[in-house]
Structure formats: C-alpha cells, structure tokens
C-alpha cells in the first residue's frame, strides 16, 4: 500500500518537472524566434556577457569593488564555480579590469 502511494507521489513529481521544463523551453523558443537578431549576428561583448552572467547567481558585483589583479583571481574562481566558458571569462575580465577604475 505504502509503495503504491509513494510511487504515485514520485510519478507526479516527475510529471510536474517534465511539464515545467517543456512549457518553459517552448516559451523560450518562441521568445527567441521573435527576437530573431538577438545577438545572433554579432558576438557578445564583455559588457553584454557581464550583464547576462553576473547577476544570475547573486546580486551583481561592481567593477569598482576590486582591483584588476583581484578581478583576475575572482574571475578564475567564478569560471570554475559558475560554469563560465573560457572565452566569456576573458572578455568579462577585460571589461571589469577596464572599468575597475583602480
């Protein structure tokens, strides 16, 4: 009896997740299709990438908070922890170092 109940609960969990994923993925595909040119034609700049990446796991950290050398260490840390690709990390680092004002 208990097994059946728990299987049901699990089944519902999986269904709920699958549904959420499908709905969200479709919403995004639609949004992207409507947004046609969004970054497709030109490569994203360091600033664009900073805006995309640096505010999604935590409140954004401003370039002026650290020195260029500190940013190099921090961006290495964020590349590993935050799953950022090497190319993006380099662009963002350059942007932060230029804007650091130190």
């Amino acid at each position: 009896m208990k097994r059946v109940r728990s299987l049901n609960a699990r089944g519902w969990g999986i269904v709920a997740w699958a549904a959420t994923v499908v709905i969200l993925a479709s919403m995004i595909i639609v949004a992207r299709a409507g947004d046609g040119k969004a970054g497709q034609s030109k490569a994203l700049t360091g600033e664009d990438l900073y805006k995309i990446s640096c505010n999604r796991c935590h409140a954004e950290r401003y370039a002026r908070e650290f020195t260029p050398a500190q940013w190099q260490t921090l961006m290495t840390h964020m590349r590993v922890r935050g799953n950022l690709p090497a190319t993006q990390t380099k662009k963002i680092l350059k942007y932060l170092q230029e804007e650091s004002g130190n």
Partner: protein
Amino acid sequence: MNIHFRTLGVWAAGSLLGLAWAARATALSDEDFNAMKEQLTRQAQRIEQLEKLQAAPTNTAGVVQPIHPMPPVGLGATHNFLMVGDAEVQFRRVEGQHGAFTLADFAPIFLYRASDNVLFEAGFDIRLQNGSTSLLNGRTHDSGAQTSIGLSFAQLDYLLNDYVTIVAGDMVLPLGTYSERAAGWLNKIPNDPLPRDLLPGSGIGVQLRGTIPLDMSGQLFSYAVYGVNGPSSMDGSGAATTLDAGSNAVPNLDLGGNVGLQSDGTTGNLHGSPSGGGRLGWFIPWKAHYDLELGVSGQSGTWDDAGNRRWSAGVLDAALHLSPYFEVKGEYIETRQETDDVGTLRPRGYWIQVAYKLAGLDLDLPLINDLELVNRYDVLDDDMGTKTHRYTVGYVYYFSNTLLFEGDYNFVHSDDPAQAHNDVVFQLAYGF
C-alpha cells in the same frame, strides 16, 4: 696710426689662434671621437643588458640553476591572495521556545592564484555554539561557548585548457546547484531547503568540469564528472538505522564522514570503492536578465563497510529569470539507499523558490525599491514514515548589493511532532 696697427695685430693673432683651435678640434674628431663613440656604444650595451636582467628576474636562472621549475610569471601565489566570504548574524524564534541571537556564521573564503591557470580555494564556516556539560544527575545541559570551525571546501583548480578544468580536494559537489551557489549574501532565505539534507554538500576526490559555448547568443553546455570517497555507514552495517548513545534510533547513512583519513591516522576508504557522479547543465539566455538553466545530476556508490549496499542520488535543477526582478528556481531530489533490513529506501523531496524585486514595479519609493519578496515551498519525505512540508514567506532588504537584511516566517507541517514547529528568522548578512 699706431692704434690702427695694434688693432690689426690683435685681429691677426685672434685669427691665428682661431685657426689653431679649429685645427685642434679637427684632430680630436678623427681619433678620440671614434674611441669615445666606441666607449659609449659599449656602455649603452651594458645598460641594455642590465635593464634586461632587471626586467626578467627569471633570467638569473641561468646563473643559479633551479632544482624546481620557477613560478610561471611575476609574483608568486601569496601575492595573488584574496580573502572574500561572508558573515551572518541571526535572530531566530521557534514556536514554543525562547528566541535568541546567534552569530550564524563567519565564512571566509581564501583564494590563492598561483598563475593564470592554477587557483587554490578554501572556504570555512566558523560558528560559536554552546558546549554540553554532563551533570551529576546524569543529564546534560548547554553551557559555555565553543567555536566550531568547519572546512566547507578546499580545492585546487587547474585550468587545463578552455574546456577542461581539473579539480582536486574537498570539493563542493555539483549535485543540483544549491550547494555550489550558496553563501549568506546570496541565499534569499537563511535556512537551506529541507531536501538538501539528503545530499552531501562536499566530497573528497577529483573532478573534471568545463563549459562549452553552444552558439553566439550565449547558450552554454556545462559538464562535471567526479569521483569521491562517497558516503559511509555510522555503525558500519547496511542497516537503515542505528542506535546513538542515548539509545535513539538514528539514520545509519553518513553522507559526510568518509574523509579518507581515519581516527587512528591510517588512510583508507571506509568501504571498498569510491562513488562516481556528475552534472550536465544547459544555460539558455535570450537577452540580459532573461534566461533559463536546466541541469541533471547524480551520484552513485556503496555506503556500508562491506560495500554491498548502494546509495544513489538523482537531482533535477532549474532556474528561470524573467527580467532583473523575477526569479524562480528549484530542485527535485531523489535518493535510493539499499539496506540490509528494510529493502531500498527512497528518501526524496523538492523545493521551489520564487522571488520578486519590487524595483520592478517602478514606484518612486526608495525603501520599496530595495525590497525583494521571497516564497519557498519545500518538501522532504524520508521514506521512513516522516514527511515534512514547509512554506516560507519572507523578504530581503538590500542595503547594498552585498549587505542584506532578511526576515522569514516558516510554516512547518510534519508527521514528526518534534519537527512541526513554525519559526521566525531574521538575518543580517554581509558578503565581502
């Protein structure tokens, strides 16, 4: 007339003298000039050499032959040292108990960058808590203060190339995203989601991870695979529960205790084999602050001393941002624990958190604009008869990007009366 001749005499003498000087000058430029030029050239060369030596101190390696390779560039690791981290002060009141302030945590993170591709990172949790004194009547009572220092992670990252990073040490595990993306100043609710108790936060071993851009729009695919010691058993057996010193039945599974170095100083896995795990993630941004991330991760290996019983976990994670103000994220966690006595247990749970920054309403009120409302629903089913649901409502007030004040009320429903207590928590958190 006299005067005339005198003037002429002086003029003639002057001319002669001038000629003589000129002759002398011509004589110098021929011989000495070349000698001086040569000397100057030699001096310039010496200065150049000296400058070179000073600019690249590693060149002196030619003079003193190093036994070990020299550090790659510039200053050593200690000069690229950075201490970051966070600290929290909490006030918590559980229904039916006295409220109290606590220094929830002081959590420094040390970062040492040895070169462009080597980073060592270590994070600690330092807390103050009461000690426990045994009294004459056989009971114990909380008294005194103890400082506990926990190592949250200590890992060496080697960026092998653009797509592979090798990580070794006590690593935060990529099981879901919660542990890897947690810190007092970035969690929107002070306490962790209940089902995170089903997973180890860190593990000792090695990991390969990397991220590959999928297209020009910023889509990313990330992967991580790792091997760690894995969980172990409190009493060594594969039984679901064991008895603690007070004869209470407690879960036998020990998610964090198999650290490779045993109490007698010998090294070894507490069971036969390490556990393996990993995560695959897909990040889809469509413009700044609008993105979706999906991930699937898991870990599997044995947990009892005999190495006969398996413990596995599977996690689905998702995070969605629609504008800089709105965020939904959550995880579904399912674990399987084979036991000697009650078959396979399937403890599982999920959590979902929705947050909205009121700045999105664009009201011209400063206090409102720095406020974020947060809701979370989390469920934990231990598959041993206790199911707990918790609903949290709260807010985060941002004094700055890293100084925040959180207030939350937790409504708790549980089959276990000991856990079914609502509570209120306030926390001041600072990230540095």
